[in-house]
């Protein structure tokens, strides 16, 4: 499932995938894979992303049951 929340938060801070990747210490392909829903990040990476994007884990990674 695509993670549009990260994409939106990233766009809000005017950060590119490459810039976010550099700030959290992963490759750009990894950020792309997370946003596309192809990769489930570890909790440590989730926390790093949240810190850089100034969001909580819930705001970026919580999904409501349909």
């Amino acid at each position, binding site marked *: 499932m695509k993670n549009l929340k990260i*994409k939106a938060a990233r766009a809000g801070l005017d950060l*590119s*995938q490459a810039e976010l990747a550099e700030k959290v210490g992963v490759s*750009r*392909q990894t950020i*792309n894979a997370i946003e596309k829903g192809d990769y489930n990040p570890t909790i440590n990476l989730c926390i790093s992303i949240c810190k850089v994007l100034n969001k909580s884990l819930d705001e970026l990674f919580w999904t409501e049951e349909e």
Partner: protein
Amino acid sequence: MKNKKSNLDERQEQELLKIEHNGCWLAFWGLLIAMAVQMVIYGYDVNGMKAMIGEWVVFMILTLYIAIGCLKHNIWDRRFAADTKTNVITSILAGLGMGILNIVSMVREYPDAIVRSIATGVFMGVFTFILCLICMEITAGKYRKDKKKLEEALDAEEDDEE
């Protein structure tokens, strides 16, 4: 009976992957050392070489699997960069290893022909160095090319979304 659903939870899965990872490298280095020892013991004896075929085939399959898998997923190495400096150093080490192994093996087989043994060892070492360097330069080149392509594809994707 085999379950479709894994019996392992997330943590156990990670532990199993770690064990399999260590097992894989144990097999890699074990086979390499076994072949090196057999080479020193048997030298250029045909029967000795025949005895090594099994190990060699398994080693090559393992090596090719790792190399192709990494290239396919655009992964080079945890610590080493895909550059010429790394390739030259790695090739020198491989050449030195092969050269020394051949000298030891030849000296054991022909104790009276020291100069010939050293010459053979040097030739094999240089040959290994060149072959290794060519292979590494080709694979590193492909890795860099694929990485660039991937970056361009991501750029295009980001531009489209904007």
